[in-house]
């Protein structure tokens, strides 16, 4: 990629229809004092996304079905719990190591409730090691709720929700100890992870357990994909939570996100087509008008 010139001047010739639209946009720029026209597209994006979320949330609340496709990671989780039941060994659930204010930890609690319902139904032990005392209280609530959902409140074992340590590597040593002593047949690791994800995945692999891991941030995903049997990647993490909880807010956000992505893909195909056609053409082309309508040519130091 050669280095496009620094913010140079627009080409002299404004010939053609595109040129006339370009000049009209120049005129328009100064008019609205109350808004910076370069940022108009961002305002449109925010308003459209907000409107979509609002519409879909109302529909979801009125019971209209928003179907989320079955996420492969969920099948892997159910298979792992099933195998643990067959072998009569516990399931280990690691809810990430971040505090409760991290959105992924809150969603991990919701998924934990679903897992707890399954293990209560199957009568399998569920061990939840945590790194933060506040997360421990939330985890207890989630597992208790799951056992109630399965109609077996007696299945809840308070001692299985264990606060190990709030120091990163000491927590890993604690989890490794549980893996060695109680030999869980399934390790489910969902939430926010940092550099220790590598150690947890390696220890889990060596203990012979089926491992399903998932996190929204992409930096730890390479180690999970390499060492675990199945990985729930990036936005799939939020989709799994929406699928399990059917919570209107979340369903609406995912549906709105899909619509925006479809629009982005259509825009991409159209824009790239135009750009390829007019690559190397001097003067203003329709693709430049399109770029400017996305507030790029001015803000992004672009050129004609």
């Amino acid at each position, binding site marked *: 990629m050669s280095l496009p010139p620094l913010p140079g001047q627009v080409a002299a010739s404004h010939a053609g229809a595109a040129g006339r639209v370009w000049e009209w946009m120049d005129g328009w720029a100064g008019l609205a*004092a109350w808004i910076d026209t370069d940022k108009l597209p961002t305002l449109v994006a925010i308003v459209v996304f907000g409107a979509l979320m609002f519409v879909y949330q109302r529909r979801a609340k009125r019971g209209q079905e928003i179907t989320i496709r079955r996420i492969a990671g969920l099948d892997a989780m159910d298979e792992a719990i099933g195998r643990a039941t067959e072998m009569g060994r516990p399931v280990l659930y690691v809810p990430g190591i971040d505090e409760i204010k991290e959105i992924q930890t809150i969603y991990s609690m919701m998924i934990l409730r679903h897992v707890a319902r399954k293990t209560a139904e199957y009568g399998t032990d569920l061990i939840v090691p945590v790194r933060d005392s506040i997360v421990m209280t939330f985890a207890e609530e989630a597992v208790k709720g799951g056992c109630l959902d399965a109609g077996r409140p007696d299945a809840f074992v308070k001692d299985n929700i264990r606060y190990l340590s709030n120091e990163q590597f000491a927590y890993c040593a604690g989890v490794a100890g549980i893996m060695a002593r109680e030999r869980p047949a399934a390790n489910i690791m969902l939430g926010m992870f940092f550099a220790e994800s590598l*150690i947890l995945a*390696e220890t889990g692999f060596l203990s012979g357990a089926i491992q399903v891991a998932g996190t929204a941030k992409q930096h730890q995903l390479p180690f999970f994909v390499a060492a675990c049997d199945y990985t729930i990647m990036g936005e799939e993490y939020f989709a799994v939570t929406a699928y399990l909880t059917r919570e209107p807010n979340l369903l609406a956000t995912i549906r709105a996100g899909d619509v925006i992505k479809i629009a982005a893909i259509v825009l991409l195909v159209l824009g790239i087509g135009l750009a390829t056609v007019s690559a190397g053409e001097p003067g203003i082309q329709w693709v430049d008008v399109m770029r400017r309508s996305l507030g790029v040519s001015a803000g992004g130091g672009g050129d004609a």
Partner: protein
Amino acid sequence: MKREIPIALTVLCGLAIVWSFFTPSPYADAVNSELNTWALVFFSVAFLLGIGNLVRISLKQIAAGHADAVFKVVLLVVLFGYLGVGLLEIHQQRLGLFGSSEGRVVGLGGHGERALRDWIYRKSFVPLQATMFSLLAFYIASAAFRAFRARSLESTLLLAAGTIVMLGQVPLGDQLTGGLASRALAFLMVHVNGAGQTAIIIGATLGVLATGLRIVLGIERSYLSD
């Protein structure tokens, strides 16, 4: 009462920032800059609160005769020792220490206002943090041998791409592959990784937009229940 006012404040300040982002006027800039400074002050005060937590837990463990009690004492001595040195250096001008006076800062040994703090920082904080992170080189090596398996198409592609990137970054890689590795690296990074990262970033930004909208419009209440 306990919930309505905080939510109103969140919505008010959030919308003020959004307004200042879109409006090209000096008043917008002033509002934006002042609200940013307020958020900065609260962020700093919240951080100072965090210290109380650490000191309380350490003191409780020392009192309970915890196995690592002596190390907790080391922690507190270092914490308050460095805080003392820092506060003396910050306020040396007013206190007339180390030769500093009202208008002039000299610092210990004439090496400026933060001489001792920076020395302790370079000789302890630097090696400790850098070495803690470098431990991961060993953990990756162990995991590479014992846990990274090409069990599916996905993990095979991942390990293959990782190998190309590892070879393409170093001189030996090019020597072994006759210059192919660094060219393959450039193609993979700019065209395949570039596309993957763009898609991930667009997805993540839509997530930030969704949570941001819910907070600024007052729909999201979870942060209040802590």
